[in-house]
């Protein structure tokens, strides 16, 4: 037992408490930093030296040391948040796409297709009442104008759908760039974490930055992460590794560049190196779904309505057809046009016969007429949009709750940090007092010995 051991015990405490206060200070400083994970100083008491053989007497411990500065992560809450934020991003993106689709319907209103169809049937009805003379000529002009209005509304719907497709495709392209740059950053941070940890220094702040990036990837492509023993993480997309420790792979969007090709080739996200399709979730999942299924289906719906208008009116009108395709091919919503000269519009077979005009006006009331087709189509997508909006708000609530759980367990509670700080401060003061006591003891021993009574 050394005479000076008391000094070194006090010193170990001074050093340890100072370190602990620094960590508490770091926690308080980052109380408002998003993604910061609180740290805790784990202290350990140092045992005394084991006595040499035969030695007797007592030994005390050698003071205190910092065992580790722990990063208080919560893997369960973190992976729950990864899944929930991926789901929320999918649901809200899907709801956004459907909201854009239904905004194009402009129903129920006086500007929607149904109002235009109503005006067209009224024009035919008017022609049936006034088939001859000046009134007949005027009625024919109205028939052509209102038919062209119906065609123009359907063309506008098709055009809007196609431009939505292009917008979504552009967004997916931007997302691809973002995902690649984030996964690159994650692999870089993994490398730095491993390198720093190898030197024995904590790399907690680097790990925090990396985990924030992983959560961004969760929202973008539905990525999940798995921790490695060396402190780095693997990032998985649909079970395949996007980031494997210190190496990152890249992804690319594969599929047609314009909506015209969407019918035959679906859009997907693939790994650049193997060409395999990545089972993406998150925003990317909803975007690929919109490009491959939703928007082509909407376009097909517009085409069905356009075809039913053209077929049913043309069949009852006879030659020449009222509705034709601008490009001469099959009638689609994009190509529908009513370019018949008003003089060629026939009310009936001859004279004042109005059987054709009457029959066409009668289409307004048929269940499988254009009105019915449009109503089924528009209400169908309104229902899907409504369900998607409900799902999105539920998924967002779940993600918010998962975020809350993670925050509650990993963010900084200023009160408890303050209490810790007080504890460390008092312990420091105590150690300083011990130092003074030992110092006074040594003073007595060295300077006062033998001078008693002098």
């Amino acid at each position, binding site marked *: 037992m050394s005479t000076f051991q008391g000094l070194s015990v006090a010193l170990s405490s001074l050093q340890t408490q100072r370190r602990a206060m620094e960590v508490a200070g770091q926690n308080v400083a980052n109380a408002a930093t998003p993604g910061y994970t609180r740290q805790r100083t784990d202290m350990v008491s140092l045992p005394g030296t084991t006595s040499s053989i035969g030695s007797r007497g007592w030994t005390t411990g050698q003071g205190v040391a910092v065992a580790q500065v722990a990063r208080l992560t919560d893997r369960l809450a973190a992976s729950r948040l990864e899944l929930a934020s991926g789901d929320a991003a999918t649901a809200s993106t899907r709801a956004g796409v459907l909201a854009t689709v239904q905004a194009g319907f402009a129903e129920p209103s006086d500007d929607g297709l149904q109002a235009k169809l109503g005006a067209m049937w*009224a024009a035919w*009805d008017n022609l049936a009442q006034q088939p*001859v003379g000046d009134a007949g000529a005027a009625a024919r002009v109205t028939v052509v104008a209102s038919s062209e209005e119906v065609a123009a509304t359907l063309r506008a719907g098709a055009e809007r759908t196609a431009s939505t497709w292009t917008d979504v495709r552009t967004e997916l392209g931007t997302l691809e760039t973002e995902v690649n740059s984030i996964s690159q950053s994650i692999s870089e941070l993994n490398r730095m974490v491993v390198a720093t940890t190898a030197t024995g220094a904590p790399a907690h702040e680097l790990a925090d930055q990396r985990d924030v990036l992983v959560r961004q990837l969760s929202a973008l492509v539905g990525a999940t992460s798995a921790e490695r023993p060396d402190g780095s993480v693997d990032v998985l997309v649909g079970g395949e590794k996007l980031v494997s420790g210190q190496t990152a792979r890249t992804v690319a969007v594969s599929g047609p560049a314009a909506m015209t090709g969407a019918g035959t080739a679906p859009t997907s996200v693939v790994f650049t190196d193997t060409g395999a399709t990545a089972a993406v979730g998150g925003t990317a999942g909803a975007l690929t779904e919109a490009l491959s299924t939703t928007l082509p289906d909407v376009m097909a719906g517009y085409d069905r309505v356009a075809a039913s208008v053209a077929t049913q009116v043309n069949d009852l009108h006879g030659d020449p057809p009222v509705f034709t395709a601008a490009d001469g091919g099959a009638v689609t919503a994009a190509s529908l046009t009513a370019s018949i000269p008003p003089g060629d519009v026939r009310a009936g077979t001859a004279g004042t016969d*109005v059987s054709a005009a009457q029959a066409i006006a009668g289409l307004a009331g048929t269940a499988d007429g254009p009105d019915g087709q449009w*109503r089924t189509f528009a209400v169908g997508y309104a229902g899907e949009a409504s369900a998607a909006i409900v799902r999105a708000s539920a998924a967002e609530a779940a993600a918010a709750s998962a975020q809350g759980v993670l925050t509650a*367990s990993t*963010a900084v509670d200023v009160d408890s940090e303050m209490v810790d700080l007080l504890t460390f401060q008092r312990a420091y003061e105590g150690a300083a007092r011990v130092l003074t006591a030992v110092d006074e003891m040594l003073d007595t021993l060295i300077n006062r010995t033998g001078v008693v009574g002098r």
Partner: protein
Amino acid sequence: MSGVSASLTGASGLGGRSTLVGSAGAAQAGIAAAAARYSRAVDQVSSGRAIVQPSDDVIGTDKALGLRQALAAEERYARASTDATGWLSATESGLDQASTVLNRLRDLTVQAGSDAMSAQERTILATEVRGLREELLQATNTTYLGRSVFGGTTGTGKAFVEVDGVVEPTEDLGAGAVRRALAPGVEVRVDTSRAQAFGEGDTSVFAVLDRVEAAVTAGSAESSTALADVDGALGRLRTAWTDVGTRYAQVDRLRSTGEDRSLSLTAAKAGVEEIDLAKSLMELSMHEKAYQAALGAAAKVVTPTIMDFLR
């Protein structure tokens, strides 16, 4: 301890620890939700529409589309019934005119039945009968907006034309009848068959008139015989007139029920599509208060910490 999930060991996960980031995030989410509800309420009140986008109320949208379709049909029925009324009024005045002519013809025929008539007087009567023909032709060719009301679907605006001194019906190339749809599933014929009103072939009013002209010239006995012919023509005319009157009443009835239907459809559409202003304004002010409350709560989110009590 770091390996164990604090969210599992904590008392209730969310409520376990109160952190600065956590409470700020919760306050922010509260504000966003309140703002979204407020903005939706503002949208509804300012537009006056309960369904701003179809997904707001899918069943309501479907109903609204159905009601709009039915209302458009009612508008067509209303226009058609105005048109039908015009046709039938024109028909009535045509029949009125024809009946005046036929009554005058009957008077002349009765006069010609008197034995006291001299040959010269008979010639004068015959000339007058001849003169009635022109008037009768005009009555049978009554038009409405350029279309012959007795001509069915003939291409020309006339029901009868005079060819080489003989009046004949014009050729009808169409379906023969003019109909108007006046209610769902109800079509009413608005023209009047010339064969029914004025007879055809031998019984045609013009044939009768020609025969009367000959009979008047021939003598009193022949004239008395011709009287039955004239009465027959008048009878047909009256039957047709009654028929027109019946249809006129039917059109009137259909129009008035159509107007009722139209009113109730409009009310139903307003019920589905438009907001209840009092209710929406209440909701608006409620959401406004909720939004302000959320803002107020957020202002106090930085809860007092122990720091406030340390020096």
